[in-house]
């Protein structure tokens, strides 16, 4: 009998406890993920230029174990008008989030701080292809991530798209400011197929095979 009453007492106590349920889909009531949470990859936005960090170099696309990404690079018009240091820029980028296994290899291989595991983690969509996100959505995801976490580039001197002024660049002898370079001599076909690692505008004197082509400013 004591056991029966104990059982009733337990359920009575829990009945007056606060429910543990979160009213999930409502934005202000959902559970917040931790800062270190690794969600789906997203493309980051260089607010200084402004343009994406991504140059479309395809390293992540080739490293992806599930082939969930595809990317295409193009000439950067801002490079022509000397607003940016990036010679190439991403044109289209698509990730099939349903295929992504959240391994983070794309982030590890990226040379340009361009991709990061964001806080996005929800796969339920209304369309059949709703999980194939395009460049705009990836950048939105990235911007949300940057706003949430106060993300800073790991290598700002190398990966910032801000053109280096001539006088400021004198501190780094191995590097010439991007705008001092003449317009790209090669044709468009050659550029798209040129070495992806040099997609960002680099000084011609740099050893192309060097591991660290740019010294810190």
């Amino acid at each position, binding site marked *: *009998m004591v056991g*029966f009453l104990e*059982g009733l007492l337990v*359920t009575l106590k*829990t*009945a007056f406890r606060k*429910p543990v349920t979160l009213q999930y889909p409502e934005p202000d009531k959902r559970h917040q993920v931790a800062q270190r949470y690794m969600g789906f990859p997203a493309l980051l936005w260089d607010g200084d230029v402004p343009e994406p960090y991504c140059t479309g170099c395809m390293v992540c696309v080739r490293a992806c174990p599930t082939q969930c990404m595809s990317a295409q690079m193009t000439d950067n018009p801002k490079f022509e008008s000397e607003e940016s240091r990036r010679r190439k820029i991403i044109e289209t980028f698509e990730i099939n989030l349903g295929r992504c296994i959240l391994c983070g290899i794309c982030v590890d291989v990226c040379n340009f701080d361009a991709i990061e595991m964001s806080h996005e983690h929800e796969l339920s969509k209304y369309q059949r292809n709703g999980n194939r996100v395009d460049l705009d959505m990836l950048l939105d995801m990235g911007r949300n991530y940057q706003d949430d976490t106060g993300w800073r580039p790991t290598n700002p001197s190398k990966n910032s798209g801000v053109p280096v002024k001539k006088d400021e660049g004198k501190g780094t002898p191995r590097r010439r400011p991007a705008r001092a370079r003449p317009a790209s001599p090669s044709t468009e076909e050659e550029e798209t197929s040129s070495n992806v690692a040099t997609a960002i505008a680099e000084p011609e004197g740099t050893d192309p095979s060097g591991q660290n082509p740019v010294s810190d400013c």
Partner: protein
Amino acid sequence: MTLLQVVYYTLGAAALFGFLSLVVLVLTWAERKALARIQMRMGPMRVGLHGTLQPIADGIKLFTKEDILPSWADRRVYWLAPVAVFVPALLLWVTLPMARDLVLRNLELGLFYITAISVLSVMGLVMAGWGSANKYAMIGGLRAAGQLVSYEIPFIMAIVAVAMLAQSLDITKVVDAQANFGYALIQPVGLFLFLTAGLAELGRTPFDIHHAESEVVGGPFVEYSGAHWAAFFLAEYLNTFTVAALTVLLFLGGWRWPAMPFDGLAHSTLSLAWFLVKTALVIWLIFWIRGTFPRLRIDQLMSFGWKLLVPLSFLNIIATAVVLFYGWPLWGLTIISLLLLGGTVYVIFKNPGTDMRRETVSVISARDLRRNPTVDAADA
């Protein structure tokens, strides 16, 4: 019967039906909410404020569902079974008063009528089990028959003891006899018997073996869907309300006890509210028990009913009869009743007389065997 009477009863029956439908809707919502709170969930929250419109959404869903007839089903029996369950549940309310004169027709033999009608729903369950042409349904129907028939005895005997105290089968008179004290005070055993047997009659946890989802996958209701399943569902909740109301009327003083202030209309309204509040408390108790205890095994259920509740109900009647015959004070009955209850608790938990010897196997860990193999092997 005059025309006026016909109009009166028709309107009254319609109003009663409307009220009971409303009660059933509220109960489905309240049960989900109560169970959710016991499990620290929130229950339905989406439809309406805190899910209050959820029963209506459920109703729309149920009544727009396809009604499936199994190809081997016994057609007439299959379609008739929900009616056979639902109609008795509704008929009970002809004579159940919610306040003085707030009753469709107060019968002189009200309690007799209730015991007679409440057994009828068994037939509906057996019909459902038979008509479905399904093994699970058949087993569930037979379980329902066995369970309801055996628990009908203590249920009726508890009612008989109350009728002996009140010297009447008229429910209004039973309630009036409790003006000074509820019968729960002088017959705790009666209350225990009535609630336990009532739970079994309802087929609610812990006595829900006839539609045990994990054993007979819904029992007699397996094959039903849509509106016909809804009829069973409505009857079940209606019966829950009925048993709670009967508990209040027979043991907790109905609308009389404790006494209400005011006169006239205010008193009537207040007594109705008092009755409904007490009923709600009993219903909460039923939900609470459902949220706490697991289901009994069928042999446990049967031995609990026949070996404990049935003898106890007869002892209860004998005690009541002795006290009434010799004109002993009623608090004497309270003491006897409490003693009986204590004896019941002793029987349930100490289990005297059945000294079971349990065969136990002593397990020797492999490590012990390794250390001293000869000795341990000899011991074992």
